[in-house]
């Protein structure tokens, strides 16, 4: 398939939300045009699985920076994971894992996991609702966009949807969500692409054609009748059921009592069952750990440990299952949460709403590395401090779309609404990338960013080195908010200087963030009194 073939594709996509055992199923159908294009198997069978961690995951207790451990101990002693229990990663540098995450540790060591440090966005919002909307829509913090990033992607590809879908050429949904609420991520730009599976029965019942319970009496009798019709009218019910039916045996090692694993098990079944569905979305709630995040007497246990265990075991079993079903090369996954949590823990053995946090990209073709530096933890933290953002979450989306779904730059611009930094998230051996130009090698350590004087009072001069091309130099405060963009331009290769003026900012720590091509670097600056 040629990239230019995507250019003619226009708006749409369709969601099929349905309550299935507390899960929602939303499906998007594919277009004849794409089905024609997708004859090329290496292109078509790529699948992206999005795992939403609802509530704001505490990134600092998920990926724990060994090199920041002492400062971390000052900031969050009541929830701190004992140093000797933190899981080490082969080639993971200073990044260690929460002890509950042995599954993800294995995946990292097997080169199937990428950790992207400090993913966020300028001007973070601390409301669950608003932050979720920002992550779903991929808008700027102060911008309101009514469509979702995945919805826009589907809209670019599948023109006219849902008109004429499904059809004999391409009978499958474009995207399926198994989750607890209708995700705005799948919202298309113009039409509401949602199409309800109106039957509130659980997913297994849908697959097996079983009805959920109905109340006694005539109401229950008629309800059952309407549900039957609803099931028949469920456009994708049959293809989903058939795909599920093709997979009679799955990996036996899925954990029990793990709703994320249950959802992922369904996803694996549908992928291996031959659905050409591009995007799956699953979710796990409960990450809003304001209180009792850990058991005070054993901080490696408690709510958060249990949640991370579910994530880790769920993903590990999913990956094992995909290998078992021989579908592992087709699938890439990503975890995300609407925000991380504060550096400093609170008095209730928990953490409050924060900003940037690490996210995981997993899969056979996931770029195996820790991308970015350890988040810098100050010696003394205040309650409102957040770790500075290193990567914009929209860079991750844009990189996935380009490197996994081969979306050309022109379309990417429409989907992401802006041009975002490309990060290497997919191994270069992945089929889709064979013709991609090389991204610059990982040269973080060779980037240069200094400032003088430091500490400073009225102004400080930043020296930075660029490899040429687009260069961004930003200043964030300790809450994670962008307060100044010093450079946002194409610059020549070499060393440049720019002055950061104190415009009446409060004394304290500021972070300068340099972004050049796929590289970035942050530096701590201290504004004195």
């Amino acid at each position: 398939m040629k990239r230019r073939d995507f250019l003619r594709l226009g708006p749409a996509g369709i969601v099929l939300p349905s309550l299935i055992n507390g899960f929602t199923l939303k499906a998007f159908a594919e277009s004849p045009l794409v089905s024609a294009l997708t004859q090329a198997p290496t292109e078509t069978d790529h699948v992206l699985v999005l795992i939403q961690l609802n509530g704001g995951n505490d990134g600092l207790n998920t990926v724990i920076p060994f090199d920041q451990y002492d400062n971390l101990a000052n900031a969050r002693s009541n929830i701190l994971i004992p140093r000797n229990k933190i899981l080490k990663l082969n080639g993971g540098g200073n990044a260690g894992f929460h002890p509950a995450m042995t599954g993800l540790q294995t995946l990292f060591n097997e080169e199937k996991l990428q950790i992207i440090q400090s993913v966020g966005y300028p001007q973070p919002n601390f409301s669950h609702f608003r932050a979720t909307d920002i992550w779903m829509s991929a808008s700027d913090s102060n911008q309101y966009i009514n469509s979702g990033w995945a919805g826009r992607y589907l809209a670019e590809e599948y023109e006219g949807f849902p008109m004429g879908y499904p059809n004999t050429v391409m009978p499958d949904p474009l995207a399926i969500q198994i989750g607890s609420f209708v995700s705005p991520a799948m919202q298309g730009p113009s039409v509401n692409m949602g199409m309800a599976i109106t039957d509130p029965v659980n997913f297994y019942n849908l697959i097996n054609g079983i009805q959920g319970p109905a109340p006694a009496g005539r109401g229950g009798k008629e309800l059952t009748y309407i549900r039957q019709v609803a099931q028949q009218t469920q456009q994708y019910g049959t293809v989903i059921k058939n795909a599920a039916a093709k997979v009679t045996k799955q990996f036996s090692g899925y954990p029990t009592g793990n709703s994320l694993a249950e959802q992922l098990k369904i996803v694996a079944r549908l992928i291996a069952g031959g659905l050409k569905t591009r995007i799956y979305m699953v979710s796990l709630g409960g990450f809003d750990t304001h209180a009792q995040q850990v058991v005070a007497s054993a901080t490696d246990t408690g709510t958060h440990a249990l949640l991370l265990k579910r994530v880790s075991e769920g993903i590990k079993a999913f990956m094992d299952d995909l290998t078992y079903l021989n579908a592992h090369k087709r699938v890439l996954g990503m975890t995300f949460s609407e925000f991380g949590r504060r550096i400093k823990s609170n008095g209730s053995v928990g953490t409050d709403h924060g900003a940037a946090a690490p996210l995981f990209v997993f899969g056979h073709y996931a770029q195996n590395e820790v991308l970015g530096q350890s988040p810098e933890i100050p010696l003394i933290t205040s309650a409102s401090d957040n770790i500075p953002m290193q990567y914009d979450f929209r860079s991750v989306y844009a990189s996935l779309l380009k490197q996994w779904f081969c979306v050309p730059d022109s379309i990417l611009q429409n989907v992401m609404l802006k041009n975002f930094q490309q990060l290497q998230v997919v191994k270069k051996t992945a089929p889709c990338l064979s013709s991609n130009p090389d991204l610059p090698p990982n040269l973080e350590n060779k980037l240069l960013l200094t400032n003088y004087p430091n500490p400073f009072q009225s102004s400080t001069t930043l020296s930075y080195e660029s490899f040429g091309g687009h260069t961004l130099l930003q200043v964030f405060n300790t809450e994670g908010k962008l307060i100044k963009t010093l450079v946002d331009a194409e610059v020549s290769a070499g060393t440049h200087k720019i002055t950061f003026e104190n415009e009446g900012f409060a004394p304290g720590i500021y972070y300068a963030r340099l972004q050049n091509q796929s590289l970035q670097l942050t530096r701590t600056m201290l504004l004195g009194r």
Partner: protein
Amino acid sequence: MRNNRTTTGIQPQVQTLTDLQLRHLLRRVLFGFTQKEVTFFSGKILSEILDLLLIPSIAPSPPLNTYTTASLSDPNVPLGQTWVNAPYDGATNGARTTSFKSWWIGQMLNQGASIHEKMILFWHNHFATETVDIGDARYVYKHHSLLRKYALGNFKDLVKEVTRDPAMLRYLNGFLNTKTSPDENYARELQELFTLGKGPKVQYTEADVKAAARILTGYVVNATSISSSFDPNRHDTGNKQFSSYYNNKVIVGKTGAAGATETDELIEMLFLQEETAAYLCRKLYRFFVYYEIDQATEVNVIQPLATIFRTSGYEIKPVLKALFSSEHFFDPLNRGGMIKSPVDFVVGLCREFGIIFPSASDAVNQYFMLDYIRIQASNMQQNLGDPPNVSGWPAYYQEPQFHELWINSDTLPRRNQLTDILVTTGYTRNGKKINIDVLAYTENLKNPGNPNLLIQDILDLLYAIEVPSDVRQFLKSILLSGQSTDSYWTDAWNNYKANPNNLVAKNLVLNRLTSFFKYVLNQPEYQLS
């Protein structure tokens, strides 16, 4: 289906209604209902509630010419004036018929708290006529006015009037029924559909049909005044002998104007048959309670109602009052067992959400929007004014499925599409829009800030049957974006209320409410009354 059997009968229900019972009553006798109507009736005793509900609405002003355009004009009727008394005009008759239907939908939408409109629909189905067959909208309007006038009056009087109604005389060829060429059409339907019905207890013969037809000879229609009259010259003046079923009754033939009195004698004879009352009570039962009539219901409900009906001299109000006062009507097993007819669905939807239509001063757009709603019902297989034939809509009589016939793989998606459109984009034409304002609806509820109470209030209003707690949890997760902390909704709602003009604050709640209502209205539960 043991759990669907009810043994309750016509004995009076306790006068003090629970909220659940009040809502059940309103749902059945009105097209949808609002919180305002619940509040109005709340605290009143059942007898008083029914007396109020049984008050007919005042006669409305007639339908208007809203159809004159550059290419279509009604020669005798200026735009904005009524056409009901104007001469026939072949070019505009179709537009007049549409105007009548739109107007009728408008009457239903503005029904007030009275059973009147629902009874008019009942009679329209009972004395089913088709506008396409009648062929002149003025007859249609006149016929409709008759049903409207007698809807809560005396059934026997109504039968007498309908027998001489010009529209009915045209529809069932009564005006062609003469002594020299008798036409049995009306004579047959009068017995088979309008009074006695069919069944083992009904033993009239073909000879009885012929005898009745002879009695009914002589009626002619004046197409200028849209009236009927009796022409003795066309009347069969011989004696009419009836079968043993009618006790070998002889109706003596009469000459001159007195010939018309034979019609009244015939109708009196039909009303001496006990089956007439029982037949109509079964039809009322199927329209307002449930379609299955088993032996217990026949004995405990139908026959006692029929006795009341006969005793009152076929007054409609007492029989309705007895039915809606009965333990049987309020039997929990009967709750939610009605599948909404398309007209009930579309009109009820508009009323429940207080959808605002263009005002009377903008009659052209008002009628257009009313017709949009009417067409939706028509697409769902209930074309108001044009039932499939003289038997009415099969859903009201066709064994064994009855109301279930409204729901099939074509009509159910149409219902869902309509609610989707109205909840999301609304329907726009000519710069005017009708839509469901989910914010306004929510604002008018008692506890919009409390997600649990909000969901409870909404489901109480919109669903006739209880939903399990896991469905409630799911619904809440839509409002909470998957979070488990109720206050996140409360905060978002309060923030919107405090800053109603802040787009972000507004969209946070609007987004979630839109998804919420879309889902609620898509569920099979919403199809039930």
